[in-house]
């Protein structure tokens, strides 16, 4: 899709600010023992992360561990990352007032410079992307204070900007299933997405994500994993005692959701992408048995699209159309969730079996 560029006298200023943030990275790297690089295959594209020092490497790369690429793999997008505290490098004044970057974050048109920026959306850092050069920068004030948004879904802003302009639509939803395919569980926070997704994981099913996934519609609809994490409130985590030792921020769970790192204990159940078979709209009614019933495409779109669009800054103008095309192409179901979380998983596994057989014979 060709997006209309916005002619703006501030385009030159955008470029100066980007250059200033990049020079901050160079200064920070110059004060370190050396740049640390990691490359991952996300949404089918090579994404190289370059850290000015080692302080942010672990928290910001563990969620991508299941997508790691061999060293030297080609990169389609480069993200340079630094913080002021560990590098003793202040944010250059020429980056501009951080509040201006925040205000420019919502929504939707791209300046002629091709440079997008966002502060504090969704993570407490400054994201900048030069779309033309496929070069991104991410800065946080202090690597010793990594927020749970960064631990669970790092670089979401940059990845959304870049992927969504390459036919990979970020969606707010969980994707779980089997080798035959996955279902996309959608709905606002508290609708049961994470609980259902983790129930499926613990039941032995495959897992692509609990809150953010990529969807592509070229040919067969596919769901792509981005993060091998899950987010759960403390009271929900008590349902899953087997996950408690994998919580990355246990000391802060009185303040924020717990971030569960699934890479080590569940590596065999993580996949980069799988065929997408259906959209599930859960209903938290804790019935004795789970129940599925077909729901309309517009109901599925209403559960999927607003929460997706409102969480993402500067989504492309055709994002809603992409999601509408998805719900037109695959069936959607309401699912009354059971208090027996294992029964929910079994119900979804049976649905996937039925849909994949129907799809194979079509």
């Amino acid at each position, binding site marked *: 899709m060709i997006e209309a560029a916005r002619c703006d006298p501030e385009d030159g200023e955008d470029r100066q600010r980007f250059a200033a943030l990049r020079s901050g990275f160079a200064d920070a790297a110059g004060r370190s023992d050396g740049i640390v690089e990691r490359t991952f295959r996300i949404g089918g594209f090579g994404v190289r992360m370059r850290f000015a020092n080692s302080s942010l490497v672990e928290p910001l790369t563990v969620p991508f561990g299941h997508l790691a690429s061999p060293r030297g793999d080609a990169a389609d997008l480069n993200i340079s990352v630094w913080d*002021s505290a560990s590098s003793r490098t*202040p*944010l250059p004044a020429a980056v501009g007032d*951080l*509040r201006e970057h*925040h*205000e420019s*974050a*919502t*929504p*939707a*048109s791209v300046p002629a410079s091709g440079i997008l920026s966002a502060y*504090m*959306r*969704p993570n*407490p850092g*400054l994201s900048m992307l030069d779309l033309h050069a496929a070069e991104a920068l991410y*800065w946080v*004030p*202090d690597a010793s*204070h990594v*927020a*749970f*948004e960064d631990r669970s879904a790092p670089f979401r802003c940059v990845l959304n900007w870049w992927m969504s302009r390459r036919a990979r639509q970020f969606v707010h939803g969980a994707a779980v299933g089997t080798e035959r395919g996955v279902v996309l569980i959608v709905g*606002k*926070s*508290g609708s049961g997405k994470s609980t259902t997704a983790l129930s499926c994981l613990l039941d032995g099913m495959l897992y692509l994500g609990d809150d953010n996934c990529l969807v592509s519609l070229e040919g067969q609809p596919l769901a792509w994993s981005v993060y091998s994490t899950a987010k759960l*409130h403390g009271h929900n985590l008590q349902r899953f005692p087997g996950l408690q030792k994998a919580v990355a921020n246990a000391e802060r769970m009185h*303040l*924020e*959701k717990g971030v569960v790192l699934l890479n080590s204990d569940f590596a065999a159940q993580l996949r980069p992408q799988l065929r997408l078979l259906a959209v599930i709209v859960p209903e938290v009614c804790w019935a004795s048995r789970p129940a599925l019933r077909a729901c*309309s*495409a*517009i109901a599925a*779109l*209403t559960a999927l*699209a*607003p*929460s997706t*669009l*409102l*969480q993402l800054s500067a*989504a492309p*103008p055709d*994002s*809603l*159309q992409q*999601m*509408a095309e998805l*719900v*037109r192409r695959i069936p959607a179901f309401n699912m009354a969730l059971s208090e027996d979380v294992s029964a929910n998983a079994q119900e979804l596994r049976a649905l996937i079996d039925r849909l994949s057989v129907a799809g194979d014979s079509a």
Partner: protein
Amino acid sequence: MAERNSLRVNRPSVVDETIDGEALIVNLGTGVYYSIAGTGEVIWRMLAEGLTPAAVASNLHQLFDVAPQDASNAVAVFVDQLIAEELLVSVIDAGPSGATSFSGAGPGDSAPGPFVLPELKRYADMQDLLLLDPVHDVDEKGWPNARSAPLLGTERRD
């Protein structure tokens, strides 16, 4: 050429999509989303095509069993709602007068039913997704002040 006031959809803040005669409209600026079905969806599409409220009322009179004055009144009330919700904005237009004919139901869209007063269903339950990212006061290092900073304060984050 004379200038005139016309209405247009408040893009890019407002995005919309119609499936099977029901429109989902999201105002990305306010965080509120809407559902319109039946007569209201037809009116929305006419307005999105650039028809004036008078032309919309005239087309409704032809499409539905509704008196011209009743159609005009219904459109006026609905348009006021859409403007109040910042889904439509008034612009000064120096071009030729707006379209008067409606392209009608598109492929795959259901045919309009009997005329009922249009209803805009409004949902504000996801506005907090915008409020999750308030414009924080930041200190000179870029770290949000404790007063508004969930990371450093005691506010729970979802």
